């Protein structure tokens, strides 16, 4: 028996919540980036589930999901680049300490 669409959406919502908590609660920049990856994983799951259950003849949902994966990797690359730059300049990866714009 195939699981209903709502089960995938609920799983996506729980995954999104876990990612959101990681982004908001963790101070290490690398772990915060991992939280963003979790959030975008839930987006990928939802997009493909919508595509599958709408029984679309085209592959739009999968194209969207592939685009989200590429966007995720690009933002992780940009984020890691920024965190490496932060580390080189201030010797820290703690996001709370990156407050130069406040001054």
């Amino acid at each position, binding site marked *: 028996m*195939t699981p209903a669409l709502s089960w995938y959406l609920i799983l996506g919502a729980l995954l999104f919540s876990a990612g959101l908590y990681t982004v908001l*609660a*963790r101070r290490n920049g690398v772990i915060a980036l991992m939280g963003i990856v979790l959030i975008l994983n839930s987006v990928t799951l939802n997009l493909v589930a919508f595509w599958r259950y709408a029984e679309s003849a085209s592959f739009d949902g999968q194209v969207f999901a592939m685009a989200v*994966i590429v966007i995720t990797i690009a933002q992780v690359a940009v984020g890691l*680049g920024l965190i*490496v730059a932060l580390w080189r300049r201030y010797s820290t990866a703690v996001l709370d300490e990156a407050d130069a714009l406040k001054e």
Partner: protein
Amino acid sequence: MEILFFVLGIITLIAALLVALQRNVRHAALFLAISCLGVAGLLYLLQAPVVATTQLVVYGVGIAALIRFSPRPLRQMTRPDALGPAPRWWGAALVAVALGGILIWGALAYPGASGAATDAHTDFILPLIVGVILLPLAMTAAVRIGGRR
């Protein structure tokens, strides 16, 4: 099929929660890889093998390679982290639970939303593809920023 869904779903969720709670950054990355592999399994269940394989290769192999062959600053950053969660972690937990609750309520209250979601695909596909083409520029910028001393 249903049993496989629940097994993969539980593995994915537990690994995601361990990413949020883990202090050791390398262990967190390992759990992130497990969570991503779980999502790839769910994508196979949804009969989207191309997306699932992309997910498997990009995340599973990518994260492992990142941790194993990471540059020196990143290796230093991924030492066990003495920092726990932020002082106001309960606020983050509250926001996450509230938003998750709203999403679950939406999934259960509006079962016909899938039609609207798939209709949106065709309208926005072109700008999205343009965005994907522009993304290598962002990656180039990341390399430039990261390489600057």
